[in-house]
């Protein structure tokens, strides 16, 4: 084959091959839509308002990310266990869903740097004698299946060797069971605990103590190999804090006080 035939061929091949290297970040920008998995029964991070529109910290966070990318945000409701299938099957691009960044999970999905950190509280039924978190020993306790606090609590119950652990499918069922007295106590994020006690939807519950665990750092997730997007999300989270938007969203959805520190002293990311 003569060289003059090869050159145009190579040019053509390069032009055609170009789009094949497009990564998720390119796909999102060219499609004009960012699809976020958000858990909507997890106030104040995600819930629905009176007219059934998704609202909350995570919803706003997704909207901000979409605005930064210059695309439209599309909120896709998922439960906690459904986040990963939604991501893997390409139903969503990222999950802005308060996902705890455990090492076990990082073997499967790609985590950004933390964008929020929860502290957890022990909430008990008023009929139960309990003064601190260790009062949960030997009791029937439960939490939302698949969450950081559920994994922690189940391990505690196993360690204690007494009592019973029940993982309910969503936050509302946990608090319903707690309010009915089917559960003696639960562990949930301080934000959720306060919102549920204040709402009056679940009478007969009280916050007892803070749960003694490492702050639950949560991160944005996408596919593990999408470095371009992960890199973008990291910078985005940094900018949210830098510009004061993080504090603004905290004040809007969580309330008074300082938003959680997202850095860890004495170590690089």
């Amino acid at each position: 084959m003569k060289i003059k035939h090869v050159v145009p061929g190579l040019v053509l091949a390069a032009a055609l091959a170009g789009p094949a290297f497009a990564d998720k970040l390119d796909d999102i920008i060219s499609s004009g839509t960012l699809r976020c998995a958000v858990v909507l029964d997890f106030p104040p991070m995600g819930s629905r308002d009176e007219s059934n529109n998704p609202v909350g910290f995570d919803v706003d966070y997704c909207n901000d990310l979409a605005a930064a990318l210059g695309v439209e945000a599309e909120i896709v409701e998922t439960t906690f266990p459904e986040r990963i299938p939604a991501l893997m099957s390409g139903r969503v691009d990222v999950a802005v869903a308060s996902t705890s960044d455990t090492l076990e999970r990082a073997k499967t999905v790609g985590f950004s740097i933390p964008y929020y950190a929860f502290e957890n509280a022990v909430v008990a039924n008023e009929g139960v004698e309990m003064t601190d978190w260790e009062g949960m020993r030997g009791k029937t306790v439960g939490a939302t299946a698949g969450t950081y606090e559920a994994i922690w609590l189940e391990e505690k119950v196993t360690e204690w060797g007494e009592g019973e652990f029940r993982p309910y499918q969503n936050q509302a069922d946990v608090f319903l069971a707690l309010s009915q007295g089917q559960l003696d106590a639960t562990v949930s994020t301080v934000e959720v605990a306060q919102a549920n006690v204040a709402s009056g939807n679940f009478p007969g519950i009280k916050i007892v103590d803070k749960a003694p665990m490492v702050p639950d750092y949560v991160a944005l997730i996408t596919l593990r190999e999408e470095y371009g997007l992960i890199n973008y999300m990291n910078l985005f989270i940094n900018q949210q804090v830098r510009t004061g938007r993080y504090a603004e969203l905290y004040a809007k959805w969580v309330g008074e006080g300082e938003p959680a520190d997202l850095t860890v002293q004495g170590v690089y990311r």
Partner: protein
Amino acid sequence: MFNYNFRWAQAMASLPRMLEGALVTLEVALLSMVIGISIAIVLTLFRLSGSRILSAVAATWVEIARNTPALFQIYMVHFGLGGFGIHLSPYLSLLIGIAFNNAGYLSENFRGALKGIPETQTRSARSLGMTPIAAFRYVVMPQMLRISFLPMTNQMVWAILMTSLGTVVAMNTDLYGVTSDLNARTFRTFELFAIAAMIFYLITKTVTLSARLLAARLFRY
């Protein structure tokens, strides 16, 4: 497949826990069938009794069991009764929910089976001096159970599959509960649920095949 690398070795390490879960699933399904069949026979008798009240009780049970989702029935056993201060463990809630559903469907199966048994049999039995109950117990019921044996195995399969609804009442020791717990920890969704589906398939297949063999032995004419 879609950006996912299968890591079977990691998921297979969970197989022993899942098999333990499968045993619990089988146990719940079997118990729910025993309870369901017993109640279904009683409901069938209620319908035959001629009493309006008893027939109404049976009819209501069957209507609710057959025309509402099993998910709803199990949820109501746990949270509905919970609202009245009756607190049942996840295991009992699931068992009672499935048994309730089984009883409704099986009672309809029995009613269908009864239609296939000529009325003359009862009359002949009565003319031999049997009481109505004895006539039912020794003449009609054995035939009824025989005719509805295969539908019963269907219900058993259905009961096994229904155990997966236990997660709504925080059941975490059955096959599906164990699998979703493992999934929350590791995010190996596709391997874990593929293994769970395979175990479900093997259990139900074993049940249907052994039922068929059993039927061939039991019901030889």
